[in-house]
């Protein structure tokens, strides 16, 4: 966005900038940044959305029905993938899903028109990584808490011939350990790629109209703009799907820990 010497840097939207002064925490300076600001915005919007659903009427209004639609969706997901114990994990999976969804959607808001540049927190590997590690540690803690060392039987699929064990167990172990990375990378890559694509296309729109041969540039601009409309819709879809995938995989992994295959 910041056009230095007429060039548009599509990576600028991912820059973290400090807002206000920071404080010291264990030798590290903690600053309030635009990343933190937009995470907070997402959290506050989420809270507002939820409060709208707290009327607790027997016959729900539209807002309450929308909120209950989300809670039923996540509750159904956890009970379906984890079973009867799934309700215990609904609060975590619900918070995860809604937080990611709101962060994704807030990042899509066209507030740049008003000079406010939304920051998509979920396009940062550090953020998605922490969320993935949270899910992964819940899996580990629940797994070892419930099953003790028996949890390692997760790496031995049922009915594996003894001869195959030296091959199967490392593969299973590797696929288990890669989970937090795949979880974090999937969301980070999807959000980053989408936002990059949008930014690149919008830079085409602008530089097309600024081109020396205006008719050719206009064609490029119009085509890019048409494409942008479609990709924006796609990005809204991706915002929902990635949140869903993150929550679904988390509940499936928790199912592994609770029920061991």
């Amino acid at each position: 966005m910041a056009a230095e010497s007429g060039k548009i840097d599509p990576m600028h939207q991912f820059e973290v900038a400090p807002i206000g002064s920071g404080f010291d925490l264990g030798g590290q300076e903690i600053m309030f940044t635009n990343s933190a600001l937009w995470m907070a915005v997402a959290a506050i919007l989420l809270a507002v959305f939820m409060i709208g659903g707290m009327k607790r009427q027997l016959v729900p209004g539209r807002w309450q029905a929308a909120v209950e639609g989300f809670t039923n969706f996540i509750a159904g997901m956890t009970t379906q993938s984890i079973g009867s114990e799934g309700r215990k994990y609904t609060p975590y999976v619900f918070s995860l899903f809604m937080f990611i969804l709101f962060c994704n959607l807030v990042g899509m808001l066209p507030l740049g028109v008003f000079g406010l540049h939304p920051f998509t927190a979920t396009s940062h590997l550090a953020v998605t990584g922490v969320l993935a590690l949270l899910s992964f540690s819940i899996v580990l803690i629940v797994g070892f808490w419930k099953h003790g060392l028996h949890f390692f039987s997760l790496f031995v699929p049922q009915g594996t011939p003894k001869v195959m064990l030296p091959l199967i167990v490392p593969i299973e172990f590797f696929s288990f350990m890669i989970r937090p990375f795949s979880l974090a990378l999937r969301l980070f890559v999807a959000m980053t790629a989408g936002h990059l694509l949008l930014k690149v296309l919008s830079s085409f729109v602008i530089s097309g109209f600024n081109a020396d041969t205006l008719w050719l540039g206009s064609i490029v601009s119009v085509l890019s703009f048409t494409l942008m409309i479609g990709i924006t819709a796609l990005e809204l879809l991706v915002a929902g799907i990635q949140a869903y995938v993150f929550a679904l995989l988390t509940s499936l992994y928790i199912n592994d820990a609770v029920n061991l295959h």
Partner: protein
Amino acid sequence: MPQIAQLTADNWYLASQLFWLLVIFASVYVVIGRGMLPKIEATVDARDRKVAGDLAAAKSAHAAADALEESYRQKNDAARADAQRVVTEAKDAAARDAEKRLAVIDAELAQKLASAEQEISAARTSAMAEVESVAAEAATDLVAKLSGVTVEQADAQQAVKAVIRG
């Protein structure tokens, strides 16, 4: 790429980002996940229970209505059969009554007929007797006028009787 750059050791914003992420996500989890979600789920559960209860109540009311209708129909049938029986009995009784009365009247009529016939025959005999005596007298008179013989009353009577009776 700022996302990768922050993973290097001397990056100023990694710590801030992690700190705020943890703070914000923790508050989301506590306030929304632990605070609001159970209340909404409780509302949903209460509604589901209410719906299930209402459905069950409607079902039992339906069954009760069916049973009531069935018993009503049975009672109706019984009452109808009862009425039919009463009507038949009344008809029978009336028929019997009529028969009895007819029999009494018949007997009375027969008696009256018999007595009338008796009277008639009595009247006929007495009339006959009178005719005989009148005829005997007439015969005596005739005999006396014609022959001058005086016939005894008894003889005349016997002779008249013989003629009349054949």
